[in-house]
């Protein structure tokens, strides 16, 4: 079912004092698509992503994932349910090797955090999951490299690999292109285009070229409200979006 709704965000509200960071946000993510979330700085994108991932409790509203209300679940529980996430600033265990980071993901997914006595790095099942994920993103050759020695682009790849170990049903990606060179961006674009068939991607991205090249749908967030959702062409031609957002970019 191509139009199956995987992730459904319903009427989220979140205020910090007088600031309405989320002002009644609703959006959905359907099987097989990349849904890009764009908006000027301070529009509330990060706040929204945190609420979807479970790190921040909304004042009001609900998040449904795979047809189930996950609003009360923690970050860890939502990850267990299959919500894979990558961060704007790489969140990795920097002292661990690339393989150890991937195994960490496999441990979380398998629910084997409380396995006490068998060495993790000799566990076939964990290594297989981790190895396959590294293979997918092209980091298999760097399995024994210490993560802090990876290049910026490789760290982004590892982020995706760790998310892959969760066998996710949806991805939340926060600016995966940030700080990557043109070459890296192009490679990642190709990769994401393929990845979306495995699990749909909610993508926060500043790189407009990448968004227009990748997204099946785009939502525009301004001052905590979604002012438009639609295809690339629809968003490009939307007058509100132009004045509120794209116009500023062109002028700049």
């Amino acid at each position: 079912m191509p139009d199956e709704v995987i992730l459904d965000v319903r009427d989220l509200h979140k205020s910090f004092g007088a600031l309405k960071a989320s002002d009644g946000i609703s959006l959905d993510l359907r099987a097989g698509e990349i849904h890009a979330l764009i908006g000027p700085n301070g529009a509330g994108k990060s706040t929204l992503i945190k609420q979807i991932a479970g790190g921040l409790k909304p004042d009001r509203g609900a998040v449904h994932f795979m047809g189930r209300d996950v609003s009360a679940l923690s970050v860890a529980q939502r990850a267990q349910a299959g919500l894979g996430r990558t961060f704007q600033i790489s969140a990795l265990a920097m002292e661990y090797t690339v393989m150890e980071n991937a195994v960490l993901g496999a441990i979380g997914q398998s629910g084997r955090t409380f396995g006490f006595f068998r060495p993790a790095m000799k566990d076939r099942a964990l290594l297989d999951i981790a190895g396959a994920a590294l293979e997918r993103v092209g980091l298999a050759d760097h399995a024994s490299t210490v993560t802090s020695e990876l290049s910026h682009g490789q760290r982004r790849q590892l982020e995706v690999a760790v998310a892959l170990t969760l066998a996710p049903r949806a991805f939340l990606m926060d600016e995966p292109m940030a700080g990557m060179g043109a070459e890296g961006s192009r490679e990642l674009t190709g990769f994401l285009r393929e990845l979306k068939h495995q699990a749909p991607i909610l993508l926060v991205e500043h790189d407009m070229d990448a968004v227009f090249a990748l997204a099946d749908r785009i939502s525009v967030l301004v001052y905590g409200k979604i002012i438009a959702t639609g295809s690339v062409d629809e968003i490009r031609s939307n007058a509100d979006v132009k004045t509120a957002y794209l116009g500023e970019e062109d002028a700049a």
Partner: protein
Amino acid sequence: MLPERMINLLILGLLLAVPLVALAMDEPFIITLATKAAVLAVAGVGLNLALGQGGLVSFGHAAYFGVGGYAMGILASHAQSYTPIMEVPFLIEGTKSMLVIWLVAIVASALVALLVGALSLRTSGVYFIMVTLAFGQMLYYFAISWPAYGGEDGLSIYVRNGFPGLNTLDPIQFFGLCFAVLLIVLFVVNLLNKSPFGLALNGAHQNEERARTVGINVYRLRLTAFVISGAITGLAGALFADLNRFVSPTMFSWHTSGEIMVFIILGGVARLCGPVAGAAVYILLEHVLGGLSEYWHIYLGAILLFVVLFAKGGLVGGLSRREVRHAG
């Protein structure tokens, strides 16, 4: 630069050789010093699981050390006075059996660690340090003001508790027993460090957000580590009480918590045998510097300050080629 495994063997070999040489030279006091080092090393290895692997800077591990010590003191004092601990609703007698005492010490200190950890782990960073320190102090004051078991004066046990097949009053036999306990604890902690649990624990130390987003319940993970850590330190407390045949509220004092941390920093944070080396060096300093000056803590303070400011990684870190992350 040596591989860490070799350094570990060297440290343990030295700790074993010293009392054997002392036995040959008929120096029972040195054997007792080595026994003290082995027992304190167990406490340090326990704390290192939480502090080194987990990054949980507990400044209250004296609590578990003291609970273990009083488990021994209470059980043995009832046994030596032939009075039951309680009669209603069911009869509990004291005991002079080390195995039973160890079991009680482990369970009791694990329970206290569960309570303290469940509350303290709601906080993090500098709060966690202050809260664990405060709960340790709470038990210290409780031990002082509770009159039933000696209060401020503590409790003396006249005869060391028994272990099947051993004469525990013979210094070298008691050393052997404590050394064996240390080896078993090191073996278990090494397994834990390499297990999925240990990988997750250290992973959450390096990046908490990452651990959460792969589906790890970080709170439960840390609480489990904290409880195991407390239980090991509690076992050390029971051994320490048996070594001295005496328990007092000093075992609970914040100073004891600080000392256990000092073993770790002297030896090397997050190194398996770091606390062993640290405890041995500490006992050596206490003996050598303490012989030179009544005010040896000034020198200890200066050495500690130097290690923290200029020689992070401690003894094992200085000798080893493998780098590990520093706790924070």
